[in-house]
């Protein structure tokens, strides 16, 4: 119902983008990364003018507070009051899932970044959803690629919540495809502090590798190291998180795993620009895990608008965006036609100590190509 009124503005005037992100709450650091990246991306894609063909592009950031009901409220406000042409966001999968139906109702393109749940481009998919972020399955495929081979025995460890179960299910599928066997799956209370019983069971299962899916404030790394898991011949593997969390991973130096992004992993001009510009604007800080995602989202929107010649008509945009490839700090991304998931590069890495850096640094082993990490299509 709200869509018809904004139709008039679609050819003229300012193009408005609503960005939903966690600016407070548990995921606020992700929110900051995304919004900074988005701003930079807009400047990059429009050469700093924030205009295409004379039409101004404006963006409005709204804080979801990492709460679904707030996300819906804010999204509705963006769609009705501000009459935005695009939605971008958000930091939490839950918030994003709650907003997905609104995109359909108001017929607006929703560029999902950096929410990771498979269901966003899977069971909950609608045609207005495009995702520049990688999803859990891509993570899993990348994780599997780093360690799974024929005959390898792998134990997994994850929080006992949707994120953990999603991640492990996807990982298992990918790893078994590569010939590995999952010998033990361990799930722990995500709010717990004592993981020793879980780790004990993993030790008892005697796997070759322990693959860990972990996000959240409390981390198991100290306890894994205290219980001498590595000394017992079990190699640990996981995804490298953002810099703040890398600091908790000192006991894991030497670990092989994967990364979504670390500022010196990609080797391309866009990334060079990003690192430099980010440092300039934000007094020397480096772009972090989800900064390039925010940037990619902005670039994808501008690219799409270029293709539709500035039309914000959603059907035209969908047509333009399906299968669209665009350059991002992580190299070329492509929105897969079937489920609008951006296929993208991920990185096989090893954590190493580096002089002058007070956390273990992900060092590139090899790039995992977009094709290699392409996840299964699950929206049908």
């Amino acid at each position, binding site marked *: 119902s709200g869509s018809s009124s904004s139709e008039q503005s679609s050819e003229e005037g300012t193009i408005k983008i609503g960005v939903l992100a966690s600016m407070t*709450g*548990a995921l*606020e*650091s992700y929110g*900051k990364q995304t919004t900074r990246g988005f701003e930079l991306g807009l400047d990059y894609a429009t050469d700093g003018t924030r205009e295409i063909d004379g039409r101004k592009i404006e963006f409005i950031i709204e804080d979801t507070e990492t709460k679904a009901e707030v996300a819906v409220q804010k999204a509705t406000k963006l769609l009705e009051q501000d009459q935005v042409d695009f939605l971008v966001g958000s930091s939490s999968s839950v918030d994003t899932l709650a907003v997905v139906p609104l995109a359909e109702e108001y017929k607006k393109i929703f560029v999902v970044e950096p929410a990771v749940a498979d269901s966003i481009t899977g069971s909950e998919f609608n045609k207005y959803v495009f995702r520049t972020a990688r999803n859990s399955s891509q993570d899993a495929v990348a994780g599997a690629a780093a360690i799974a081979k024929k005959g390898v025995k792998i134990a997994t460890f994850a929080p*006992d919540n949707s994120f953990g179960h999603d991640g492990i299910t996807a990982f298992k599928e990918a790893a078994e495809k590569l010939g590995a066997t999952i010998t033990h799956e*361990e*799930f*722990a*209370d995500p*709010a*717990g*502090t*004592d993981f*020793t*019983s*879980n780790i*004990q*069971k993993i030790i008892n299962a005697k796997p070759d590798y322990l693959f860990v899916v972990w996000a959240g*404030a*409390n*981390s*198991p*790394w*100290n*306890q894994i190291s*205290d*219980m*001498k898991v590595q000394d017992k011949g079990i190699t640990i593997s996981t995804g490298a998180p953002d810099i*703040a*969390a890398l*600091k*908790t991973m*000192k006991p894991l130096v030497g670990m092989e795993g994967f990364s979504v992004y670390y500022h010196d992993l990609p080797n391309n001009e866009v990334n060079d620009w990003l690192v430099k510009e980010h440092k300039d604007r934000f007094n020397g800080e480096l772009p972090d895990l989800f900064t390039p995602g925010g940037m990619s989202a902005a670039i994808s929107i501008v690219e799409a608008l270029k293709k539709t010649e500035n039309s914000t008509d959603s059907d035209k945009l969908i047509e333009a965006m399906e299968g669209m490839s665009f350059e991002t700090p992580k190299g070329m991304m492509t929105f897969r036609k079937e489920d609008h998931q951006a296929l993208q590069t991920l990185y096989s890495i090893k954590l190493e100590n580096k002089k002058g850096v007070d*956390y273990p640094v992900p060092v590139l082993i090899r790039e995992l190509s977009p094709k290699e990490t392409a996840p299964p299509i699950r929206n049908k």
Partner: protein
Amino acid sequence: MELFINLTINGLATGMLIFLLAAGLTLIFGLMSVLNFAHGGLFAWGSYAGVWLYLLTNSFIAGIIGAIFIGILLGFITEKWIIQPVYGNHVQQILITLGFMIVLSELLKVIWGPNQIAVTPPAYLTGSWEIGNILIIKYRAFIIVVGLLMYGLIYYMLKHTKIGLIVRAGVINKEMVQSLGINIKRIFLYVFMAGAAMAALSGMLIAPYAGVIHGNMGMEYAILAFIVVVIGGMGNITGSILAATLVGIIGSFMAYYVPELSLAVNMLIMAVVLLFRPQGLFALKG
């Protein structure tokens, strides 16, 4: 057998840690009957201030002292401005302490930023001893020792001084205690400050154990502390330490043998205890 010992020791350490958390609350909630939802805030502040000092000076001891100091200071402020107007009124306590909790945890982020901070134990407490197949993590052994010390201290304070009595009497009938010539306001203040200092200390001690600290850590841990105080029996420090140990050890074994239930374990223990012993495991006489 080794497995049994390992699980028991780890459970015991976790239990002691929970006890450290709950000790301050035993005074503030159990004894003084203040529903202090800001307890988690005091705890988080102890954690951040202590860790900050620890990382700054590289001295773990300095961190501990710093945490205790900030606990005392915050305890003073909290009691004077937040708690004093609402003694005896649980409904108002909930509202005002929740408000203060928000203020505390947001201020934390203003000062130290919203990111999590990684903490490791000092070198002399890092690593573990391995005796046969039994693994004892040094920092956990340390926690157990501190927990027992803390228990001894509070036990002594409550048993061998009149403070415990006066506080209990003051909660029952404040005017009467005053009429007996006791400055109950001041005693409440001191006891509150002691409770806050314990919260802050346990915040500091939990940091290397958990490996990271973060702005929202307070509330989660505070709920656990409330659980322990209640199932231990209100105001009973011995009850608290036993309840905490129980929660720790059951949690440890459940996580091993019935992992499906480990999410629910704390709530299950509490539900079972309260259904079968509605006054808590070790209720005070009377």
